[in-house]
């Protein structure tokens, strides 16, 4: 687990250095993500080695957003001043963006024949 964590941190570190050195529009961890995918393609054993630790971290991805979420409370006065407008802008645009993105993806998948029956949701209510 410590080896896996060291490797993951090393990818983040290299990503951070590249992001700053090359002035990329992507933050360091996202660059590290891309590098790790490339490394796994080159050496599939790496993926097997990191998988247990990665799954452990990803199964609690929500937890890592909590401290930043509490920060919303610290900005409460600004949010309250523009309350209705900001709330409706966030809610309206998020609903529209999810609907538009998903419907477009689905339509183009049908149109280009990229439908994947194994990726279809059952009829449960999840």
């Amino acid at each position: 687990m410590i080896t896996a964590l060291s490797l993951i941190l090393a990818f983040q570190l290299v990503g951070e250095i590249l992001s700053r050195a090359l002035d990329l529009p992507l933050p360091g961890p996202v660059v590290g993500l891309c590098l790790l995918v490339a490394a796994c393609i080159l050496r599939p054993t790496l993926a097997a080695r990191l998988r247990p630790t990665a799954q452990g971290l990803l199964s609690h991805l929500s937890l890592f957003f909590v401290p930043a979420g509490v920060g919303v409370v610290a900005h409460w006065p600004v949010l309250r001043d523009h309350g209705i407008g900001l709330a409706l802008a966030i809610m309206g645009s998020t609903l529209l963006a999810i609907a538009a993105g998903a419907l477009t993806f689905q339509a183009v998948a049908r149109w280009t024949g990229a439908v994947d029956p194994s990726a279809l949701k059952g009829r449960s209510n999840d």
Partner: protein
Amino acid sequence: MTDPALIWSYLAQGPLLWLTATLVAYVIGDALFRAAGRQSWANPVLIAVILLALLLGATGTDYATYFEGAQFVHFMLGPATVCLALPLYDNLPRVRRAAWPMLAGLVVGSGVAITSALLIARAFGISGPVLASLAPKSTTAPVAIGIAERIGGQPTLTAALVLLTGIFGAIVVTPLLNALRVRDWRARGFAVGVAAHGIGTARAFQVNETAGAFSGIGMGLNAVLTAIIAPIVVGWLG
């Protein structure tokens, strides 16, 4: 026996108390989420944030003191983002097949997110720095803050708007896409990643591994696209 006030003043200064409180709040949030049958409205992040906000208010603790302890949890966002590489790698054959749908979904989802947010806000008389702070709210926080700084927004306000967008997106995605009868996990995950970044991705992983993988890709691609188009849209509508 030591005076409880002394013990409190000792604990209030170190990271232990607020680190523990953050984890316990999340454990409670996650337990309630499970007890509610993993329904999206019982979002564990939202529950934990509300509990901690109440606790900070009750004890008169400011955010900077809280963050001294919580920063260790916050730090793990970086390594967890790197870990998104694994589900992406596992789904690579699926990803290759879905290049065109992803490109179309990205451009439409990202464009609609920015344009509709700015139009609605402008209709309510919001302009200037607040409008610029709103533009990148669908992207992951570090990218959104960078974009906001470049287009004249307030980085701290952007961070709060990013969080609210993520929580709202994670709560509405399941009922919304069920109502629209979108059954493709790839489309469902990808759209929530584009519109609601990492918190949407966390929700997608709670439901389906493929949805989570595509959500991570949507989040990454939208970070790049928003960096390019947000300044242009703010130029038109700002």
